């Protein structure tokens, strides 16, 4: 189940002006596993993902993707090395159609119609809405769209920022289950940021808790879930 | 309400939110006017007639720039049409003095009034326009208004424009008092009036209202400021200044012709205030200086490099274009901003021994 280390982050720090949003974070994400990053609002989870994918600039530390440094490399190029980031809010381009959104994910590698078909197999609901504007999709459908779009770039590492945000519990559970399956079946290394700690820990192999940008816990998911003190202090359940 | 009357030099950065007793600002502006007046008089006495003419040009450019920099810097509204507003002032003046034989001061006052009226019209339309839309609309004004002179050639004299007789110096100055110096004095007087008015405006309630609306319309309307009226007022004031500038131009050149007020003038005015520093009265002086002196400098450069007239005639504009581009890319606060930073840096190193205490709040271009 746990494979090689796909993504290694060491002492990563990110500053917004005088505010240190990410403070010396170290973590590893292995192939075929789900690593959940948890913590309160403002703990630095989103900033962490944005720094790894290149949207934000790190002030210190390293991020290594399959042995290659990716800090300082342009976002578009990090994507080409096998990292996909589904941003906060899903990032669905509402003025484009569902199919156009999907195709965008695979354009840089010249993904063919077969790959697109594969996504429709995975997400039949999207096939029904393929020509509709993405703005008309429900929250759950948008989440599927953004994940499908990311998968079309054939990534080996997948960053997900709060996929369950705004979704009904049932839908959210389905999405979580999907993420788990993707990690196992496709040997993806998944770094999952979530507000909903309980839900995330239920599918994760590892749990990392951030507080004010720093790692306060890094352990097997079951251990983190069982820790009363941690849960009450940082995770809200 | 405590005052810091006289404690701060007039070139200190304006911390616009601090309350100042009106008396402090008034005395300071009177002092400024007196100082400027003395310098101006002395300069005009020492200079020959060509330089006096340049001094006069600098004065009327300053008048127009002082208003424009208030509009763009303090009120945050861009106008590419102020060349056209200067034309309104110039034509009003020449029509009244030439055809109707009005005296100097009433004609200038009328020029100011008419331009202010046009400014009110443009300004009220402009309140709903932002950024590029406002720029586009005023651009249309700049290109379109001078065309009126072609349409109504009877009144406006067509492409040749209207000419008037030069102003005669009063007899008590002596028979041999040079005309150019008299023109410089007239223009200088106008400039001093504007210095006084704009200084009080910038440091007073009106200036604060302008800046408040510029920085945050929603917040300022919640504080009771009527956004549309404040913005229109900024336009009216800047238009009045442009009109006075145009009127003074007509006094000095004794001519109002469409060619002088084309798009090139509007863009030159914009360049001058960007160069001087948006919102800065002192910057308006630097800008006026550049407008007056640059053509001469480029002519000399062209001469020493034996450049053709084709090149030298276009050199000032080429430099303006470069200045605008470079200034926005590298140097957004202009000369005055650069000076302010140097002064502030010098102060810091004296007080704090070189450590910078700058907080998160960035300095915004647009304060004196």
């Amino acid at each position, binding site marked *: 189940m746990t494979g090689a280390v796909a993504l290694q982050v060491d002492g990563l720090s990110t500053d917004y002006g005088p505010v240190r949003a990410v403070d010396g974070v170290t973590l590893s994400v292995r192939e075929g596993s789900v690593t959940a990053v948890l913590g309160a609002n403002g703990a630095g989870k989103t900033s962490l993902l944005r720094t790894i994918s290149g949207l934000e600039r790190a002030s210190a530390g390293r991020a290594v993707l399959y042995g290659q440094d990716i800090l300082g490399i342009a976002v578009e190029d990090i994507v080409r090395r096998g990292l996909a980031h589904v941003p906060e809010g899903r990032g669905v381009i509402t003025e484009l159609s569902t199919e156009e959104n999907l195709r965008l994910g695979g354009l840089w590698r010249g993904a063919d119609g077969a790959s697109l078909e594969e996504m429709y197999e995975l997400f039949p609901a999207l096939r029904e809405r393929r020509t509709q504007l993405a703005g008309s999709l429900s929250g759950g459908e948008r989440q599927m769209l953004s994940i499908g779009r990311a998968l079309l770039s054939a990534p080996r590492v997948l960053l997900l920022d709060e996929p369950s945000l705004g979704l009904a519990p049932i839908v959210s559970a389905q999405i979580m289950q999907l993420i788990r399956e993707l990690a196992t079946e496709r040997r993806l290394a998944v770094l999952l940021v979530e507000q909903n700690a309980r839900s995330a820990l239920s599918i994760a192999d590892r749990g990392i808790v951030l507080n004010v940008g720093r790692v306060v816990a890094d352990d097997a998911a079951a251990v983190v879930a069982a820790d009363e003190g941690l849960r009450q202090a940082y995770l809200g359940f | 309400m405590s005052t810091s009357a006289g404690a701060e030099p007039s070139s200190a950065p304006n911390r616009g939110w601090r309350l100042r007793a009106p008396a402090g600002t008034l005395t300071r502006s009177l002092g400024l006017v007196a100082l400027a007046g003395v310098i101006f008089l002395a300069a005009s006495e020492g200079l020959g007639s060509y330089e006096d003419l340049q001094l006069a040009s600098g004065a009327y450019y300053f008048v127009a720039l002082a208003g424009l920099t208030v509009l763009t810097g303090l009120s945050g509204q861009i106008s590419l049409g102020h060349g056209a507003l200067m034309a309104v002032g110039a034509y009003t003046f020449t029509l009244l003095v030439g055809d109707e034989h009005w005296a100097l001061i009433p004609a200038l006052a009328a020029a100011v009034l008419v331009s202010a009226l046009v400014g009110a019209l443009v300004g009220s339309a402009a309140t709903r326009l932002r950024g590029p839309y406002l720029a586009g609309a005023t*651009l249309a004004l700049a290109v379109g208004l001078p065309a009126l002179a072609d349409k109504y050639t009877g009144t406006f004299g067509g492409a040749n424009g209207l000419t008037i007789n030069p102003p005669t110096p009063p007899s008590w100055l002596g028979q041999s008092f040079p005309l150019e110096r008299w023109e410089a004095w007239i223009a200088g007087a106008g400039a001093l009036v504007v210095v006084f008015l704009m200084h009080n405006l910038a440091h007073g309630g009106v200036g604060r209202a302008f800046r408040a609306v510029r920085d945050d319309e929603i917040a300022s309307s919640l504080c009771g400021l009527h956004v549309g009226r404040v913005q229109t007022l900024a336009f009216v004031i800047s238009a009045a200044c442009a009109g006075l500038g145009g009127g003074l131009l007509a006094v000095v050149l004794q001519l109002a012709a469409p060619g002088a007020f084309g798009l090139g003038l509007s863009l030159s005015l914009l360049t001058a205030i960007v160069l001087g520093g948006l919102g800065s009265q002192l910057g308006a002086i630097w800008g006026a200086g550049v407008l007056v002196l640059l053509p001469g400098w480029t002519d000399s450069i062209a001469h020493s490099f034996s450049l053709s007239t084709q090149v030298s005639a276009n050199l000032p504009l080429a430099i303006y274009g470069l200045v605008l581009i470079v200034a926005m890319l590298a140097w957004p606060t202009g000369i005055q901003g650069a000076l302010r930073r140097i002064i502030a840096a010098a102060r810091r190193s004296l007080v704090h021994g070189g450590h910078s205490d700058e907080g998160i709040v960035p300095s915004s271009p647009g304060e004196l």
Partner: protein
Amino acid sequence: MVRFIDLTLNGISTGAVYAAVALALVMIWRATRIVNFAQGAMLMITTFIASSVIGSTGSYWLGFAVALASGLLLGAIVERVLIRRIEGGPPLNAVIVALGLLILLEAAAGMIWGNTPRSFPPAFSIRGYDVGGTHLLFAPNDTFTVLVVFAVAAGLGLLFRRTRLGLQMRAAALAPEVARLLGVRVGRMFTLGWAFAAFAGSLAGLLVAPSVFVGPNQFDSILIFGFTAAVLGGLDSPAGAIVGGVVLGLVLSYVSGYESASLVTLAALVVLIAVLMIRPGGLFSTTRERRV
């Protein structure tokens, strides 16, 4: 009656030119949220280049092709060198930089080619058609103008809607950050957007040059008309640019014909103000309020 027909046809022909400029402005606005006030000056430069090529080789079509090619190049260079540094910054800065470019280009043109406006040949005959017994002012050159503008507009439309490149360009314009996360080279897309826009602008310059003559300041008005047309149609809408161009062309043609040619720029100003007061998003506005 014939006068009305003449003015209407003239309006469509000049409107096509305004539409091309409007299209250029809209493409740049959609991609980089900047109004390219230097568009008129840019197309002035490419028209001058065409004029020089025609002058030295005697071939109109070679000059035509070179103008379009240099338009692509000029647009790309301006975006890469200048605009890249101000994208995403305060709008006022972008306006001033564009104006600076306008001034610089016009001055440079004056230095290189002189300030005296020169004539420019039309692509085809300007002798009006004879229909039935009536002689119209509308000429083969006007037919060419209308056809080529619509062909280019259609071509660009196909490019954006049907090709992979077009999809990437649209994504870059609509959501640059998300597009980057999907591997779209957003910077390159912006450069291409400016290149295509300048291409459309160059076309407009070639088409209008015979009537306005070629000189550093001769294309100022066309910028204003193009801007007004773009605002009329909605700065976000390429289709709106075409419709806006034709509508404006008609309006100005009637003003010029029934009133006076010198009032045309002021008439455009009136149209501009009217649109911005009544329907700020333009005729084809989406539900969003006009934002700058």
